[in-house]
């Protein structure tokens, strides 16, 4: 389940990068505006799920790093850090949104997985066809790296241990429930 949520937030990152295909001063402001929006979102709607509490400080740190980089004129670094913050925050939001899955169990997961897979397949096709000649290579690299992570994450989600457990449980119970865990990030 964690993988499918990661997939959905990767889609969000891809959307952000698509709007930044040719960065200018105005787009640096756009990055700053997005940082402010996420900071506000985190403040107004803090992460309360006990399984995800460790994420809050990581998101704050990533947003601070993105803000520092943007203030220092380091647009590419600010974009990279913003992507990490967006990844963590949207992942936490999506993971906290368990009501639908708690209610209908595996069926809800399957439906979300199916929709995300279709979107990913379309995005993958678009990514290969996209014209990058007017964009700095870093923008393309960040977008492709996010794209490259998305489909393996999606495929892993379908047959990840929690999903296998849910599929087994669904044969015994009407309302199987999984428990989400979060793994610490890689070393810097």
């Amino acid at each position, binding site marked *: 389940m964690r993988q499918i949520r990661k997939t959905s937030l990767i889609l969000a990152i891809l959307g952000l990068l698509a709007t930044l295909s040719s960065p200018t*001063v105005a787009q640096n402001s756009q990055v700053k505006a997005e940082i402010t929006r996420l900071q506000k979102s985190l403040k107004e709607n803090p992460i309360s799920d006990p399984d995800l509490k460790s994420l809050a400080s990581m998101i704050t740190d990533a947003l601070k790093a993105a803000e520092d980089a943007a203030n220092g004129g380091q647009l590419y670094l600010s974009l990279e850090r913003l992507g990490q913050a967006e990844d963590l925050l949207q992942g936490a939001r999506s993971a906290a949104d368990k009501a639908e899955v708690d209610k209908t169990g595996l069926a809800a997961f399957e439906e979300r997985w199916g929709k995300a897979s279709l979107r990913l397949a379309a995005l993958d096709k678009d990514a290969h066809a996209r014209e990058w000649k007017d964009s700095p290579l870093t923008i393309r690299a960040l977008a492709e790296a996010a794209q490259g992570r998305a489909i*393996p994450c999606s495929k892993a989600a379908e047959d990840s241990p929690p999903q296998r457990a849910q599929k087994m449980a669904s044969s015994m119970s009407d309302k199987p429930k999984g428990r989400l865990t979060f793994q610490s990030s890689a070393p810097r």
Partner: protein
Amino acid sequence: MKLERKPVAFQLRSLLPELRTLQQKTNAAFQPPKSIDLHSRFIALNSQIKLAEELDASRFYAGALYAYLEAARHYGMLDAPALDAAAQAKVKNDLAAATIRIGASSSDDSIAQLFLERAASYTTHPDGSPPSADEWRGARVILDQVLPSYYAAQKPATPSAMPSGKTIDITLVRWPYT
């Protein structure tokens, strides 16, 4: 701030030879006590190599380059020594020189610029706090290993010097009835 793309584009290509070499070096380095003490670093390194290979196979060559350079950075961190005050000063000088060189280039070196921005963020904190030992090492690794890997990736791939050790026999058969 001028951030439009530079006129000379980076000539992207498959990085499979470099990735295979880096994977071999990583496997060779995975020996105790390093494999135990730096286990999380090895996990990060191997995951970046895997991501780069998958991106390369999908012809996402820009993403593959980014992941490959990130893997090169992780690999460099395995053996990077601590830096004394003189070495730290040299990092700052070298970083400034590299930043000027990239800025003056007519090529789209924005991926190299991203890593230089990272190195700068390691060595200069906005709040004035001193960098950690790992941050100094990280900046040195970017200058000494990531940037050379980046420039090497701009050149045509060199054939692997190592034989694969595998042979195949191909028998061509002409079917007489077609």
